[in-house]
C-alpha cells in the first residue's frame, strides 16, 4: 500500500506537498471564520494600505489572513504549473515566501501589476514567461507600493489607481535585469536576492516621491501573543513535513548529514542535489527550529513572524540548513545582549527568523563569520525599512544583501590571507 502511494507520488512529491499546504490554509481559514467574515476580511485586506508592517492577523482576523495566504499560494502554484516549471528547491522557496508574506502585505490584487510588468518584459524580449516566473513571483515584494500610491497621490482615485498600477507594472519590468546584477553583487551569499533588488528599486521610488513632497511612512500593525492552537498547528505542520520526507525514504537521515555539508550559497537547490525526501526533512527541521526560537524568547506568533517562519521553511529547500543557520541566528540573539534591542523587539524577531538569508556566510566561512553576519544583520534590519518607507516587503532581504556585500569581500580577503600565511608557515 505504502509502496503504491510512493509510486503514485513519484516526481510529484513537492507539488503534492505544496497543494496540500494551500488546502490546509483554506481549511484553517474556514475553521476560524464564517464565509461572511472571510469575505469581509479579504475586502479589508485588499482595500487597506499594506506598507511594512501590516499584520493581517490583527487587521482582518486569523481566518481572513490564512484565506488570503491560501489564495496567493494557490495563484503561485497555478502559475508554476501553467509555465511547466519543475518543483525544485527554488520553487518551494518562491511558493512559501508568497504564502508567508500573504500574512502581512501581499494579496491577490496588489501582486498583479508586478506579474503583468514581468510578463511584458518577457514579451519585449520575445521570451517565454517561464524564464521570468521566479522573478515575477519573488518580485511581488513591491506590492505595497501599488496600494500605497493609491492613497498617497494627490489626484482623483481613478488617476491615483492608474498611476499606481503603471508604477507596479514598471517595477515588474525593471526587476528581471536588476535582480541578475544584484545576485552578482552579493555573489549568492544573500539568499533573498529579490529582497535586495526590490529594496534598491523601492529606495529610488521613495526618493522620487520625496522630490514631489510625497512621503510614504512605515506602518506598525502587529498582533501580540502566541495562541496555543497556532503554536500547536505550526509544530504539527512542520513535523508532518518531516514525516512525509521519512515516508518517502527511510534512509534520508543519512542524506541529511550530506546535505548539511553544502555551504548553501546560491544555487544550492537541495531538491536537485540531494532529493525530495531529505529536503522535506530539512524543511521540517528549520520550521521547528524557528518556531521553537520564537517560543523560547517569548516572541509573538504574529502574521509577520509566522510569515517569516514559512519563508525560512521554504528556503530550507534552497540553501538553508541547521548547520549554516544556527550561527547566524546566534549572532542576532547575541547582538541583543550588547545593544538597546531586545530579542522580542518585533523587528528583531523577524530579523532572527529571516537571518536564514545569510546562512551561506556561515556555511562558507564558518561559525564565527556567521555570528558576525547575524549581529550586523540585526543592526541593519531595524533601520533599513525607513529607507523606503515600508514599500519593500522583503526588508530583511535588503538587509541581508547589504550585510553580504560589505562582509563577504572582507571575509574572503581575511580568510584567504590567513590561509596563505598558514600555508607559508607549513612550507617553512
Amino acid at each position, binding site marked *: 500500500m505504502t509502496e503504491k502511494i510512493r509510486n503514485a507520488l513519484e516526481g510529484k512529491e513537492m507539488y503534492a506537498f505544496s497543494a496540500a499546504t494551500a488546502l490546509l490554509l483554506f481549511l484553517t481559514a474556514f475553521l476560524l471564520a464564517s464565509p461572511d467574515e472571510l469575505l469581509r476580511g479579504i475586502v479589508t485586506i485588499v482595500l487597506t494600505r499594506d506598507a511594512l508592517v501590516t499584520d493581517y492577523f490583527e487587521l482582518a482576523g486569523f481566518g481572513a489572513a490564512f484565506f488570503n495566504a491560501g489564495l496567493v499560494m494557490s495563484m503561485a502554484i497555478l502559475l508554476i504549473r501553467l509555465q511547466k*516549471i519543475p518543483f525544485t528547491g527554488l520553487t518551494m522557496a518562491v511558493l512559501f515566501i508568497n504564502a508567508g508574506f500573504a500574512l502581512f502585505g501581499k494579496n491577490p490584487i496588489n501582486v498583479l501589476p508586478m506579474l503583468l510588468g514581468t510578463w511584458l518584459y518577457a514579451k519585449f524580449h520575445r521570451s517565454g514567461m517561464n524564464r521570468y516566473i*521566479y522573478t515575477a513571483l519573488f518580485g511581488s515584494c513591491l506590492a505595497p507600493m501599488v496600494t500605497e500610491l493609491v492613497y498617497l497621490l494627490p489626484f482623483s482615485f481613478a488617476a491615483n489607481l492608474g498611476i499606481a498600477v503603471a508604477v507596479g507594472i514598471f517595477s515588474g519590468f525593471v526587476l528581471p535585469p536588476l535582480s541578475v546584477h544584484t545576485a552578482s553583487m552579493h555573489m549568492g551569499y544573500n539568499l533573498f536576492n529579490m529582497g535586495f533588488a526590490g529594496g534598491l528599486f523601492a529606495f529610488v521610488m521613495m526618493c522620487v516621491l520625496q522630490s514631489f513632497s510625497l512621503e510614504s511612512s512605515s506602518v506598525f500593525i502587529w498582533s501580540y501573543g502566541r495562541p496555543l492552537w497556532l503554536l500547536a498547528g505550526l509544530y504539527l505542520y512542520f513535523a508532518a513535513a518531516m514525516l512525509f520526507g521519512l515516508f518517502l525514504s527511510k534512509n534520508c537521515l543519512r542524506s541529511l548529514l550530506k546535505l548539511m555539508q*553544502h555551504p548553501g550559497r546560491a544555487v544550492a537547490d537541495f531538491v536537485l542535489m540531494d532529493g525530495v525526501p531529505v529536503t522535506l526533512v530539512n524543511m521540517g527541521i528549520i520550521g521547528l527550529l524557528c518556531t521553537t526560537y520564537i517560543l523560547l524568547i517569548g516572541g509573538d506568533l504574529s502574521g509577520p513572524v509566522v510569515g517569516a517562519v514559512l519563508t525560512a521553511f521554504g528556503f530550507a529547500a534552497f540553501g538553508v540548513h541547521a548547520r549554516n543557520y544556527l550561527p547566524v541566528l546566534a549572532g542576532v540573539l547575541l547582538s541583543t545582549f550588547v545593544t538597546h534591542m531586545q530579542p522580542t523587539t518585533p523587528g528583531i524577531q523577524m530579523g532572527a527568523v529571516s537571518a536564514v538569508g545569510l546562512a551561506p556566510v556561515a556555511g*562558507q566561512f564558518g561559525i564565527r563569520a556567521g555570528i558576525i553576519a547575524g549581529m550586523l544583520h540585526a543592526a541593519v534590519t531595524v533601520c533599513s525599512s525607513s529607507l523606503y518607507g515600508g514599500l519593500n516587503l522583503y526588508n530583511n532581504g535588503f538587509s541581508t544583501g547589504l550585510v553580504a556585500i560589505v562582509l563577504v569581500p572582507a571575509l574572503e580577503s581575511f580568510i584567504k590571507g590567513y590561509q596563505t600565511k598558514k600555508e607559508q608557515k607549513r612550507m617553512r
Partner: protein
Amino acid sequence: MTHEEKKTAKIVEELTMFFFALEASYIDTRIERKKQHVTIRLEADFHPSFAEKLAHLDHYLNGQKNDGMGDIYWELAGSGDPGESSQLLLVGMMIDCADIELGADRVKLTLHRQT
C-alpha cells in the same frame, strides 16, 4: 554582446574553475556557435584522487534545464570557490544536455545549449 553569449562564456569560466580545483594541468576548451545552438567542448586532465568529485558530474550537468533559475543566477557561474558543486548545478540548468567521457585521469565534455 548579448546575455546569451555572456552565459556561454560564464559556463566555460565555471568549468575551468572546477577543473582547476581538481588540479588540472591541461584544459582545452572550444566553442562552436551556430544560429541558435552552441556547443562547448572541454577536455581536461585531473588528479586521480579527485575521481570521486566527478562521480556526480552526470547528475549535475544532465539535470533538467531551468531557464528561470539560470536567468536569475547566471552571473554567479565562475564566481565561486573552485570545486563548488552548486555552481556546477547552475551550469546544468543553463545547458540542454552534456556528453561525458570519463577516463581515469582525463575527461571530455560536450555541452549542448539552445539559445
